[in-house]
């Protein structure tokens, strides 16, 4: 168990800059999920922590010890791979014991640790089988077991659930979370799946084009996204973005679609007329006969809720999530509650908050 510190991690493959300086502080026992679209550098970051790639710049500290120049084997980490990477010619027991055998642990100690981990994961009956005789979920457990027996300072998970079917994925997700809590091992978990990220992480790192766009708890990221990328990435269906300009001396927004809404939480700095991007989540829109008119073009009934897709008067797309059944008709008026608005700077897309009093 240990802390993890990344400072100024940069990585370039030839001329292509993949990571543009990532900083991260992970507390002891914390589970951090690195989430982002493919190609955002999340796997590269994990591999740099593992020591499988070398950072072009920056330092990696595990438990306060600088491991930047160390081999993976000397970093005291364990990794769960996307395709599990179980050695096909070894039994489950041999797979789990292999790393310990190389470290020349006494036979009795190895047996004890393997038995404990197998008990923890419920795979005692599989110990003498070979990986090819196992189902996807069982292989996943064995891969976890191989990591656990090492008793490492750090667990690294590289999209370990992406090869499982949907039902098993949900089950294993919960299992990984329980196990991580119970063992209290500091963990990094890479995924592209926002549900996995929200449910697993103590904190999330949302990666975007080689930057950490936001590092925060799942609810903070959901409620106060740092920029339009994070706002659009987390949440399903995705947040709506509407164009507008600052007005009323910074106290309100004039939407291009034709409404002026006063901010609920105070003035934003900046001149009137400054372009803004207004974000509002589909579930926060409320039907209101005095609201903005929306021409609906698609209705998706999901049982307990309905997602409506339509366009505002100025042609901007809008998704609306309503509880229960869809209202009839192809027109709807919706209001944008001021308290549910997210205000972003028009071009940079950074979140704009009222200056602290």
């Amino acid at each position, binding site marked *: 168990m240990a802390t993890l510190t990344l400072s100024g991690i940069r990585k370039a493959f030839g001329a292509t800059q993949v990571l543009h300086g990532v900083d991260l502080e992970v507390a002891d026992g914390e589970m951090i999920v690195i989430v982002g679209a493919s190609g955002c550098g999340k796997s590269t970051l994990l591999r740099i922590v593992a*020591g499988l790639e070398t950072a072009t710049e920056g330092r990696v500290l595990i438990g306060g010890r600088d491991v930047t120049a160390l081999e993976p084997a000397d970093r005291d*980490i364990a990794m769960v*791979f996307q395709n599990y990477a179980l050695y*096909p*010619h070894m039994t489950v027991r041999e797979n789990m014991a292999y790393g310990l055998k190389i470290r020349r642990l006494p036979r009795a100690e190895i047996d004890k640790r393997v038995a404990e981990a197998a008990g923890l994961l419920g795979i005692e009956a599989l110990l003498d089988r070979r990986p090819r005789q196992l189902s996807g979920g069982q292989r996943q457990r064995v891969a976890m077991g191989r990591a656990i027996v090492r008793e490492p300072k750090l667990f690294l998970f590289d999209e370990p659930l992406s090869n499982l079917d949907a039902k098993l994925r949900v089950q294993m997700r919960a299992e990984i979370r329980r196990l991580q809590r119970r063992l209290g091992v500091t963990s990094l978990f890479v995924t592209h799946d926002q549900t996995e990220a929200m449910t697993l992480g103590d904190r999330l790192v949302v990666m975007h084009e080689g930057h950490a766009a936001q590092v925060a708890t799942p609810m903070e990221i959901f409620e106060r996204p740092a920029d339009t990328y994070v706002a659009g990435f987390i949440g399903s269906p995705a947040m709506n973005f509407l164009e507008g300009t600052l007005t009323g001396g910074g106290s309100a927004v004039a939407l291009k679609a034709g409404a002026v809404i006063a901010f609920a939480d105070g003035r934003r700095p900046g001149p009137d007329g400054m372009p803004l991007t207004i974000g509002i989540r589909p579930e926060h829109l409320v039907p209101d006969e005095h609201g903005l008119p929306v021409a609906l073009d698609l209705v998706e009934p999901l049982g307990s809720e309905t997602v409506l897709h339509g366009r505002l008067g100025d042609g901007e797309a809008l998704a609306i999530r309503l509880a229960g059944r869809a209202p009839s008709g192809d027109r709807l008026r919706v209001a944008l509650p001021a308290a549910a608005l997210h205000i972003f700077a028009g071009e940079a897309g950074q979140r704009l908050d009222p200056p602290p009093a």
Partner: protein
Amino acid sequence: MSNAASTTDAAPKRDWVTHAVLLLGVVVFALPIWIVLMGSTHDSATIGRGEVPLLPGPHALENYATAWSGTRDRIGAQSMMLNSMVMALAIALGKIAITIVSAFAVVFFRFPGRQLAFWAIFITLMLPVEVRIFPTFKVISDLGMVNTMGGLIIPVIASATATLLFRQFFMTIPDEFVEAAKIDGAGPMRFFWDVVVPLSRTNMAALFVILFVYGWNQYLWPLLVATDAEVETVVIGMVKMIGSEANTEWNLVMATCVLALLPPVAVVMLMQRWFVRGLTETEK
């Protein structure tokens, strides 16, 4: 419906044709062996008259005994076959050992000149023994290795084909295994022994069969370099026994030939299961 009808109608006829073709194939392949087998059971006079006996004769035991232990002026099959066996085993095992290590280096390590090394190996495919036989002979004779086992084996002990075969197989080993081994703390040679070699078992077995037969059947090179009875292999021995048409003891040549057939046949039969698996199955 039409399907069912056509199969019931056409099947017996097609089967008959298929069997005829197969039988023809068997005859073409088996008849020479049968003739050799029968010839080895007659006395030299019978064959000397130009007869081609297709039925067994009465002299099997004495022919084989003579062929095995040799005559006053010729060494027997026993010592020639021992030479052949040593040579074939050394070639097969040596080739596997050398090629698996070179393929391992080319696939799993990044070093300056890696591509160059690979292409250098690849290009030797274009230079089989026959093409480079004179320079090779010059080198071996300058080293004083003519008429030694080393001289027989060393020039053919590396194989580009086998290196390429292992290389192709190694490239299918997922990177994750390498990375998992790194995290497990296995160094390169540990990875080689614990992961690469066990995964290559079936490939090695298939190669062993091919290379053993190749080594056993070596002809041109031993003909040049093994002129002494000490290191004569059974294939070369037979060539020398044929000597001149007039006084060739064909019954003994044929008996030696049958004896020389046995080890490759035994290897193929014993390793058949592994051989087929090595060619078809990839254990991943």
